[in-house]
């Protein structure tokens, strides 16, 4: 899976870990994920879910606050990893 497929799948997974994002509301790409309800525990569950469902491995070096800051930064990370796994 790569490109738009990974993007859409990631967004669908991510939504489930954002309790402050109401159903049906579009997931804003530049809003802080923390303000949407992502705490450190949910972030761990999200990461496991992304890895399992997308078949990627997020390296430890990518587990930074910056990568988990917004949906946009997280998507960029996931897309780069799915692209890399396709090579």
């Amino acid at each position, binding site marked *: 899976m790569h490109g738009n497929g990974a993007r859409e799948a990631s967004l669908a997974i991510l939504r489930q870990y954002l*309790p*402050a994002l109401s159903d049906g509301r579009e997931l804003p790409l530049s809003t802080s994920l*923390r*303000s*949407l*309800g992502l*705490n*450190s*525990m949910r972030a*761990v*569950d999200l*990461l*496991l879910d992304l890895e399992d469902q997308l078949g990627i491995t997020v390296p*430890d*070096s990518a*587990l930074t606050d910056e990568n988990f800051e917004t949906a946009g930064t997280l998507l960029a990370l996931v897309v780069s990893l799915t692209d890399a796994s396709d090579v």
Partner: protein
Amino acid sequence: MSELVTGVALTIDRDVALDNQRGALEHLASLLRAEAAAVDDEVFPVRGLAVLRSAGLMGLLVPRENGGLGGGLSELALAGRMLGRGCVSTALIWAMHCQQVAVIATYAGPQLRERLLPAIAAGDLYIASVTSEAGSGQITSVQSPLLRTKGSELKITRDAPVVTGGAHADAFLITMRRDVETTPEDVVLVYADRHQLDVQTKGVWRTMGVRGTQSGPLHLAGVVPDTNIIDPPRGFPRAAASLMIPAGHVAWASAWLGGAEGALREVISALKDPHQRRRLRKIDDLAAERIARIRIMIDIVDSFLRSYVSDYATVYAREGVDGDTLHGTAFNIRTNNLKVVASEMAFSAVTRLVELAGLSMGYQRGAPLERTFRDLRSAALMYSNDRLLVASGKLALFETKVEPFIWQLNGADASEGR
């Protein structure tokens, strides 16, 4: 009549390191111990607290320039252990207060600091902690929002299922959701004097142990000026992980360690008295082995606690409280582990002491050992170990820094070469 009633003055000398005030701390422990049975009767230790107030220990973590003892986690651990030796309930009440003081001393604005810190140091302000919410063990998430009323006032309405000493506190430090528009994770702290709140007791505290903490549920409502808000610069979750939870766990772990230590001293002293020994048991190999194992458990808690406090001080000196290491996963796991290790090992030591002392000393109602057994049973339940272990386990999956602590420090590039 106890010494407490006769009002023996006991003061911690501000100009002498706490390590060198063994006599005063031991005296304090013995005063609290004399009250511990009465406190176990579901009585908040008003007199014990009065001794701590006048000794200056309520201001242990208040900086010296604000009139306090200027202590850090090391002094917190030492004093907590001695108080726990005397009375676990009193030690836990004091522990919770000190946790709030750490937050105020570090994060309150200048106006609030200058008003509160000297009063805390003088023993005039005992501050209760309001961080729990029904149905959630988390302290980093609060449903109840602060409401802005006219201009610069904040309206507080908050139910709290567990508030240690709530009926007796002079003030409260309360976690609240920042605003009705923000998420429950957007938490700030609000300070409120008791007279600024309508404090309603919503239940009773009838428990197996730590009965003196009187940690029953409260409903709080009131209005405070917005200068009472404490909003750590990098957010509450970071402040909780880097300061509030470490201070709390160090103080609790010390109180439990002191409780177990006090129980061991009691049993050893009985076993060394020939008259009592005849009634209790022979010092055979089994008894010796049991004593050795109990010592090991106490030593494990002592070692873990001291290494935690020492490493915390190292990080604090290098990065301050808001650096990345204290907030990092490796240190968070360590903080959780301190609480889990201390709560399990201290209770296990007392369980073994009951076994060692037998029915006549270990199982008698009203005996210190039985009380400490019940008190320390709460250790795994408060700020539940189950939840901490789940958190640590998940975090550890993504934390490869199983390595010497010194490499975990920010700036010591542990990822180099990976």
